[in-house]
């Protein structure tokens, strides 16, 4: 299997890009209304939040971690911002409070993973449930928090259009560019690749690995907050029960499908973009085809499994450096 892939000299990114192109063409020919401007804009809009989340997840996965608390940090801090703004605080104060909340969540994740050495999978699952619980147990009056008029000054991040393109896709673009520059052009980004590749070697080379692990979860949480604000602005509200949905699996799907190996140290922003486009197209196509919610979940599950399988074939775990409890 491995020989097949490597002899064809395809990496996962290329495969997924081709798959996306093929699927797009097929849908364009066979699905009525798929290529209409309205639908394409809807496709782009619907994937941009997923894409932004994927960027945060990508940073953590490159550092050989995983963050299952992203949806909770998308919903709760963003709702906090809206609640505070609605009750009369200045938008800057409200956003500052949300930012602090997100950063605190990231630090909690990072400290537990880096210092207590609890596997990221369980740490972030527990923290996510906890954060969602804090939100649901009385922080907000209703499950659904409405976008307050006080925040309309920044509502453009999810609503407006420029040259016919929705701002949310531009938000994705800006986030992608920022993450790309961080990962490829800064020392800290380089270090994240290093410790994702080989934590022990990174440590012995003199990198302070634990603060960097914390940093990657903090960045991830801040990106989740950003995604939350974009989502809330475009939907005019935030449903804090969103944590109960299977969205986090879509985020992982985007990252893994795009070709960022769960074994760490590989991939970049392009992989997230490609993964997002493919998932967006599949979901959009299924919606037009009127596939039931259950049917869609089945397809997603199959695609995720396939992606994980391809990942473990293309990026096999290094048995010598893998630890028990590694994701």
């Amino acid at each position, binding site marked *: 299997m491995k020989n097949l892939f490597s002899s064809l000299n395809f990496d996962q990114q290329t495969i997924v890009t081709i798959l996306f192109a093929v699927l797009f063409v097929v849908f364009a020919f066979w699905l009525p209304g798929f290529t209409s401007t309205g639908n394409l804009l809807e496709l782009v809009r619907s994937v941009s939040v997923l894409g932004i989340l994927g960027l945060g997840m990508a940073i953590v996965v490159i550092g050989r971690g995983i963050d299952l608390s992203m949806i909770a940090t998308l919903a709760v801090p963003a709702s906090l911002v809206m609640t505070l703004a609605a009750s009369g605080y200045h938008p800057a104060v409200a956003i500052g409070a949300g930012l602090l909340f997100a950063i605190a969540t990231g630090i909690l994740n990072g400290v537990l993973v880096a210092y207590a050495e609890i596997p990221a999978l369980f740490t972030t699952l527990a923290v996510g449930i906890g954060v969602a619980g804090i939100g649901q147990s009385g922080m907000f009056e209703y499950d659904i928090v409405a976008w307050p008029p006080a925040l309309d000054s920044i509502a453009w991040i999810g609503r407006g259009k420029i040259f016919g393109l929705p701002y949310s896709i531009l938000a994705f673009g800006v986030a992608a560019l920022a993450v790309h520059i961080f990962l490829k*052009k800064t020392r800290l980004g380089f*270090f994240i690749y290093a410790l994702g*590749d*080989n934590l022990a*070697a990174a*440590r012995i*080379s*003199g*990198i*302070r690995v634990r603060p960097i692990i914390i940093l990657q979860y903090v960045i991830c949480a801040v990106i989740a907050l950003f995604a939350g604000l974009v989502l809330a602005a475009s939907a005019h509200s935030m449903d804090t029960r969103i944590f109960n949905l299977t969205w986090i699996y879509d985020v992982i799907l985007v990252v893994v499908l795009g070709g960022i190996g769960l074994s760490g140290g590989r991939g970049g922003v392009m992989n997230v973009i490609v993964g997002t486009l493919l998932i967006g197209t599949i979901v959009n196509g299924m919606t037009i085809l009127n596939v039931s919610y259950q049917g869609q979940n089945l397809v997603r599950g199959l695609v995720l499994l396939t992606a994980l399988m391809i990942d473990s074939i293309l990026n096999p775990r290094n048995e010598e450096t893998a630890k028990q409890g590694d994701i």
Partner: protein
Amino acid sequence: MKPILEMRGITKLYGKAAAVEGVNFDLMKGEVHAVLGENGAGKSTLTKMMAGVVQPTSGEILVEDSVINIKSPAEAVKIGIAMVFQETSLVPSMTVAQNLFLGNEKFFNRIRGVNITAQQFMQSLSFDVDPTQMVASLGAAKKQMVEIARAMLLDARVVVFDEPTATLTPEEKRHFFDLVETLKGHGVAVIFISHALEEALEISDRITILRDGKHVVTDKTENFDRDRIIQSMVGRELTEELYNNKKTVARPAGERILSIQNLRAAGVVRNNSLSVFKGQVTGIFGLVGSGRTETFKVVSGAIKRNYRNGGEVYLNGKSVRYLVPAPSVQDGVAYITEDRKVEGFFETMSIKANIFLGMLTKGKSARFWLKNSEMDQVGDTWVKSLQVRSVSQNAEVIELSGGNQQKVVIAKSLVQEPDLVIFDEPTRGVDVGAIAEIHEIINRLADEGKAVVVISSYLPEVMQLSDRLLVARQGKVVEEFSPIEATEEKLMYAAVH
């Protein structure tokens, strides 16, 4: 007498390197056969092939004259070959009796019945172990008894002991020798791998010596003495030209850079004290388990902080205690690991990126933004200076040969401009051509006035490189030699005794 087990022309390749090469070995019924050799001579690999843990690349294994293909440890047990490892494979939270019958329980498993059977069985072997005791509460010697009993219960005809006495106290050792006698009395053939030459001389009937994966000699024990064993273990022809220029002039000691006093760590470093000086190579020779690596991992902060139990480390006269490697790197210590794959290089990165990363971790050059041009320039400089050879400019490190990988790991540390460079087994798994180049690098560093430490279990290497030779045994440095007076026999003697 016919051998119960025979190996003919056995070869085991790991990649291109042969761990065992064309070895012939035979084992008689009821004999104790000691297998001796230096670290990496292939003793463990040889016995692992008998026990089905690894598969030979070529050659055949015969059990009672019929060729057999042992595919797994389970199959080996079925044939009657049992291996007792250094670390026991018992389940600590179960009782002795439960461990004995583990995997062979009856469908209705009556604890009382099991205990009685176990008791009777232990008595028949005259092993003094209570079958209802928890394995976790047993000492090392009794655990070994349980392992042996389990092998006997499975009708083992061949029992392989890998370093059985390493964890035992002197009294326990005596008891172990009695056990071996008992096994012999039951007609079991015993293979005994050890570092301790005296033990081999004492309990074995025959001795086989391996060197560099090749068979050197097999003979009756009464025909051996210490000197003959050591000579067979260390004598080398193969790499003669590489190692035959014996040191005649040692570099003088410069300023004292490192002083370790009464260091205790990780259970294997016991009251270790030593000093390292600038401008010379300090060689540390010792067998595995002598605490050499752990001592220097404490110096560099690479060892987990709670493994350090006491003692002082002075760097440039200042008492230091590094909890992680980062601050030691800032203070000019470079530890170049013995296991480059696990903690040496970054396999997904290019050669240049690996080297550049080393530079980025050191204070002065630490800046927020990266410059690709700087990476290319730093990478090119070091690739040239250490003669790293690769197929393409942007090759990933994983594609390089062992020697070139090692050079990348060395460059990654040297780019940090350290004052104290610690090489742990610098030429392990390195092709012969690159060995000379790596030795050249080590000598160059000492000539530049840096303090260099070379830890090695390869005698000719330490003898050739060192200006001062320290021998470690059982967690501390026990003797110091000047390279001019040292001989392989003297060093080996100090390391083993």
